[in-house]
């Protein structure tokens, strides 16, 4: 390669790449230079001066911070010279003069770079006899993160993270000189979805997180690298002591999350230890030893009794009247086991992991797929046709933000409202809900002459000019108040861009794994259809149904109509998540045997007849598939509480009660069967997944094809008195995990309706005052706020937050929904 350079580290010639950061090039060559401020995922600042080394670039050796230099031909680096050592020792002493000696009570003690460095190289005694700097300790910078300014060495890592990485510059340096401190602005907490990361990057114990404070010493923790069950498949380290998970830390995976996590993930471990945790099988009426023979409450029972009841209910009816919904929480292996049980043993195709709020299977599997890295490639073009990543896919937001800010990628927002990326978007085309298809067609065609879908021709044509690079579409559902058809129209139009690729922005954990495992009507494992894959599975899946079954909406409708006898919910909460709340609740009441297999109690488990406690992801082994199709390992760290079991094992046991045998003793048995039969997983063994740091990417397209909508949707114009509705999820909502996490539940505020200041002023109400919002089918009362990220003529209502159920406004047969607002409600 032409940019190869030869330089010298401590007398040894090393070949590197011109422009590489010197401190990292040295580390790659096996020479570690101590550092505090440098972080490989943030821009260098050269502030702590710890990494200062003697560098000769032809003008004689001079002390230079190695984090600020790039490798150049002929550079001579000496990290061990007397001058280097003296300078580094001096810097270490400076950092220690005001650093308190409270290591014995500091959470960082034992994993503290400053402590390690001092133990390794530092002086035995301090020459500093004066009074150290004192501050009140610690102070909260937000509800979960505490700052001890005495311990802080002012490395700028947390502040850089907040500004550069998270885009929430709410902590900053204050005062100057020796009085310099990190702090928040008065009355403005560090309200960031990503605040926990500053705790992880802090090189001393200055920043600590409330859920972990004083819980353990690092040397008492053991850890397992695992995958967080979110759509990004964030790589994490699960850290536990005495069989209890105490902390999640981000793992720096080049392909995925770069070490970052959202607070929603980082602090969620407590949910699995709380009182909402299901720890024993429950049954309505009867129970263990007939404890409650005539009762209507859920009472504890034994596994054998519960499973026998379920098996009997299944055996007593025909396969078509059995359905399985949910499963995106599960590992790939558990998904495969349950799909095999349902489709191959019981013989029903009424299996759907989607709660009706994702795009259809053919859109997620049938379009050319992109990886996260492809989406974020330098100089590329990203089209956001989906939800706000900052709210729904936190680490994807971080990756996209980095691509735009640091790597020259262009971002075109094709969203109904502004997002967390709007401030850095190259172009924002906020199509009126229902009309994004027309805007996308115009964007691809260019040369627009009139406004389309509420977007000006100039904006469309300007954005058209940015389609020159490699185009990746981040594809998902931006609004639950809009049917999927306009989004599919838009995807169809964008698919016409040469080499356009699609990154599915699904919101549930292992949705892509569920699709790969065939957890949808008409689908079989390996991205293939029931018909196309039948022959390959027939020998081990003897009872495969003849034709495609029902999706979640149809399953619930069948339940409402009395045409369903057994419903198994795998980590599903249709009462909270199905787009029609009343249908779900009524259906559950109507179905003879409703079985909930879940980790945490929720509204739907409370409505079930039999509840089976499942093990959480920290308690099972297996694998997870993220939105780009990357399979990475999920590793067990602790044992499940009570008698909770892994989901795959529950499926295997139930098969036994049904007189069958899934043939699985270990998760790896399941993967082996999958790999032997799936056209897309064939090359990959369980050992490959276990061995790969970044997981294994599945790139094969499979046999599912995108089905573009026929004709063009017609949307009636909005009348002058109405606003068009958008409904989207927020990071913190009334979801089960957030609500079960003591350090997160407080962030899920009441639902809010946001409108443009123009519409807000016309309304003539004070911010936060409730208004009555009514659509053709229903009405809610909700507090209203002014937000100029929302375009004129649009109203955005939070989904799944307390106070107002947005679903009351939804007409599921309509393409889009218009609402009227009345004040003084």
């Amino acid at each position, binding site marked *: 390669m032409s940019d190869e350079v030869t330089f010298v580290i401590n007398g040894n010639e090393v070949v590197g790449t011109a422009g590489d950061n010197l401190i990292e090039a040295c580390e790659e060559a096996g020479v570690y230079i101590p550092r505090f401020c440098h972080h490989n995922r943030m821009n260098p*600042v*050269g*502030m*702590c*001066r*710890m990494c*200062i080394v003697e560098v000769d670039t032809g003008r004689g050796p*001079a*002390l230079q*911070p190695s984090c*600020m*230099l790039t490798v150049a031909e002929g550079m001579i680096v000496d990290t061990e010279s007397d*001058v280097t050592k*003296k*300078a580094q*020792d*001096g*810097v270490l*002493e*400076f*950092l220690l*003069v*005001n650093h308190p000696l409270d290591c014995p009570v500091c959470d960082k003690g034992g994993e503290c770079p400053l402590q390690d460095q001092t133990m390794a190289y530092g002086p035995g005694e301090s*020459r*500093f*006899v*004066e009074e150290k700097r004192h501050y009140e300790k610690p102070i909260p910078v937000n509800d979960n993160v505490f700052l001890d300014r005495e311990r802080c*060495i*002012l490395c700028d890592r947390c502040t850089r993270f907040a500004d550069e990485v998270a885009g929430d510059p709410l902590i*900053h*340096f204050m*005062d*100057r*000189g*020796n*009085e*310099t401190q990190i702090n928040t602005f008065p009355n403005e907490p560090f309200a960031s979805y990503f605040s926990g990361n500053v705790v992880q990057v802090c090189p001393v114990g200055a920043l600590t997180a409330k859920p972990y404070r004083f819980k353990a010493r690092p040397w008492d923790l053991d850890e397992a690298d695992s995958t967080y069950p979110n759509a990004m498949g964030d790589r994490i380290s699960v850290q536990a002591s005495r069989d209890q998970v105490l902390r999640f830390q981000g793992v720096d995976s080049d392909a995925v999350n770069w070490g970052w996590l959202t607070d929603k993930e980082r602090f969620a471990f407590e949910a699995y230890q709380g009182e909402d945790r299901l720890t024993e099988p429950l049954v309505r009426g009867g129970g263990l030893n007939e404890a409650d023979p005539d009762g209507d409450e859920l009472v504890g029972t034994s596994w054998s009794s519960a499973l026998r009841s379920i098996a009997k209910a299944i055996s007593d009816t025909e396969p078509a009247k059995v359905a399985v919904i949910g499963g995106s929480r599960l590992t790939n292996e558990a998904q495969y086991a349950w799909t095999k049980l349902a489709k191959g043993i019981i013989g029903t195709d009424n299996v759907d992991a989607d709660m009706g709020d994702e795009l259809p299977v053919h859109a997620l599997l049938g379009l050319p797929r992109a990886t996260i890295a492809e989406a974020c490639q330098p100089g590329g073009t990203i089209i956001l046709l989906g939800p706000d990543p900052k709210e729904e896919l936190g680490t994807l937001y971080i990756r996209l933000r980095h691509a735009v800010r640091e790597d020259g990628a262009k971002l075109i927002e094709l969203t109904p409202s502004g997002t967390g990326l709007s401030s850095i978007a190259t172009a924002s085309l906020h199509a009126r809900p229902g009309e994004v298809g027309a805007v996308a067609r115009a964007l691809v065609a260019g040369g627009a002459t009139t406004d389309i879908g509420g977007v000006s021709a100039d904006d469309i044509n300007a954005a058209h000019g940015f389609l020159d690079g490699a185009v990746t579409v981040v594809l998902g559902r931006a609004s639950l108040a809009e049917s999927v058809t306009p989004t599919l129209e838009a995807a169809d139009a964008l698919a016409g861009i040469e080499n356009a690729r699609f990154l599915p922005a699904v919101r549930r954990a292992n949705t892509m794994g569920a699709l790969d495992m065939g957890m949808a009507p008409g689908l079989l494992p390996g991205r293939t259809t029931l018909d196309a894959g039948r022959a390959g599975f027939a020998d081990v899946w003897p009872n495969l149904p003849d034709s495609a079954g029902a999706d979640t909406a149809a399953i619930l409708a069948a339940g409402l109509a009395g045409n369903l006898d057994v419903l198994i919910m795998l980590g599903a909460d249709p009462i909270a998540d199905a787009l029609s709340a009343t249908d779900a609740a009524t259906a559950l009441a109507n179905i003879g045997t409703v079985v909930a297999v879940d980790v945490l109690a929720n509204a739907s488990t409370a409505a079930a007849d039999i509840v089976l406690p499942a093990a959480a992801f920290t308690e099972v082994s297996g694998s997870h598939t993220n939105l780009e199709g990357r399979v990475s390992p999920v590793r067990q760290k602790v044992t499940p509480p009570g008698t909770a079991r892994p989901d795959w094992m529950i499926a295997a046991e139930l098969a036994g009660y049904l007189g069958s045998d899934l043939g699985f003793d270990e998760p790896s048995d399941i993967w082996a069967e999958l790999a032997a039969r799936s056209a897309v997983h064939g090359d990959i063994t369980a050992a490959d997944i276990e061995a790969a740091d970044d997981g294994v990417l599945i790139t094969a397209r499979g046999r599912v094809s995108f089905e573009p909508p026929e004709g063009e949707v017609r949307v009636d114009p909005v009348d002058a008195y109405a606003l068009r509705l958008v409904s989207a999820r927020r990071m913190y909502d009334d979801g089960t995990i957030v609500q079960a996490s003591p350090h997160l539940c407080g962030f899920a505020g009441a639902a809010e309706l946001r409108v443009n200041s123009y519409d807000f002023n016309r309304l003539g109400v004070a911010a936060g005052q409730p208004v009555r919002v009514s659509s053709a089918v229903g009405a809610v009362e909700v507090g209203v706020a002014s937000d100029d990220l929302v375009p004129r003529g649009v109203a955005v209502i939070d989904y799944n937050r307390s106070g107002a159920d947005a679903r009351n406004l939804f007409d599921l047969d309509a393409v889009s929904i218009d609402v009227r607002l009345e004040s003084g409600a």
Partner: protein
Amino acid sequence: MTIPKITTSRWDVEDGHTLAGYERTGGYAGLKRALEMAPEAVHGEVKTATLLGRGGAGFPAGIKWGFCPPGVWPRYLVVNGDESEPGTYKDRILLERDPHQLIEGCIIACYALGLSQCFLYVRGEMAHGQERVAAALNEAYQVGYVGKNILGTEFSVDIVLHWGAGAYIVGEETALIESLEGNRGMPRLKPPFFPAAIGLYGKPTIVNNVETLSNIPWIVENGGQAFADIGGEQSPGTRIFAVSGHVNNPGVFEVEFGTTTFRDVIMGEDYAGGIRGGNDLKAFIPGGASAPWFFEEHLDLPLEKGTVDRAGSMLGSGAIVVMDDSTDMVRACHNLVRFFARESCGKCSPCREGTSWLEKILQRIIDGNGRPADLELLMDVCDNISPGISWPPKQTTICPLGPSAVSPISSVIERFADEFDAYIENRRPSIPVEATS
């Protein structure tokens, strides 16, 4: 040959700060001449003049002007008017007495280098100077010396006046740029942030001192050679020195650069007029608080950059601080170190922690709690900020502020260790503290 007054010619003109007074005394002739010349020719005159930068480093302005990468626009001129080195007060008077001369210099520089915009950064404390510059700018805009189509030509440039918020560190050019961008005034690292390449808003930026630019109108009007003919061969022209401390007649004096000696300026009747009260000279700081100190034996050195550099100090910002034999050197040293400790921006560890540690040790010694090992400790802490304590200084810091605090300590310990010993052994000063009359 009589030495002309180049930058201070209007200091005695009552209305020299107004447009009327400025034009009456020949103002804006340089700009008119420059606009008739090719931009490159104007730059050439400045190169010929060998005008050394007057901010501190003494780098030739003509060469600095050539550092802008070709073909990159926009590019900016930033005027460093954040004069805050203790003992330095020449720019303040230039701003107050002759603001149009600076404005003219700025416009000529922008013309010569094709600069897109000029930012005039004036120290927050210099309220009177700011008002004078603001008033002068308004006048200059009104008659078309600044703004669109200057003097009817195709050349247009705007000058933005920015008031600092009062931080010494902002006198450092990259910190000034940060401040101008609205950030905390903290220096950037060089490399890679050399302003000529990556400066204001990441664009090529020329940063010049107020006095440097105030020389430009005269150079363009009279030619670079006329400037080069004045003063020393290596340090041509005239230069303003500010003399303060224990002299009879403290003040600012424009002197022939490179030939005049320290003795001339400190002792000369036309200048500072000798040591107060007939006392003896004990020490003087030749170039602002950051400079290592000079003594009796250095008095006959010429005010010439190279000579002073070789003697182990610098002319810096042209501030000469004189101390007579009644001065307690330990306290004088503490006074300066305290200044640097307070003005440290806090960005890099050696300066943030080191300067305040030094200040605390000195305070402890003055309080009578010194220990014999403290001198060695002081010197070692200094060495960890400025390895080798050599001149010109090396540094473990980002910018020269940290090493600046080393200068007074090393100077005093080297020369007046006995005064430290008196504090440490007898727990009291060797020089009795007296009320000055």
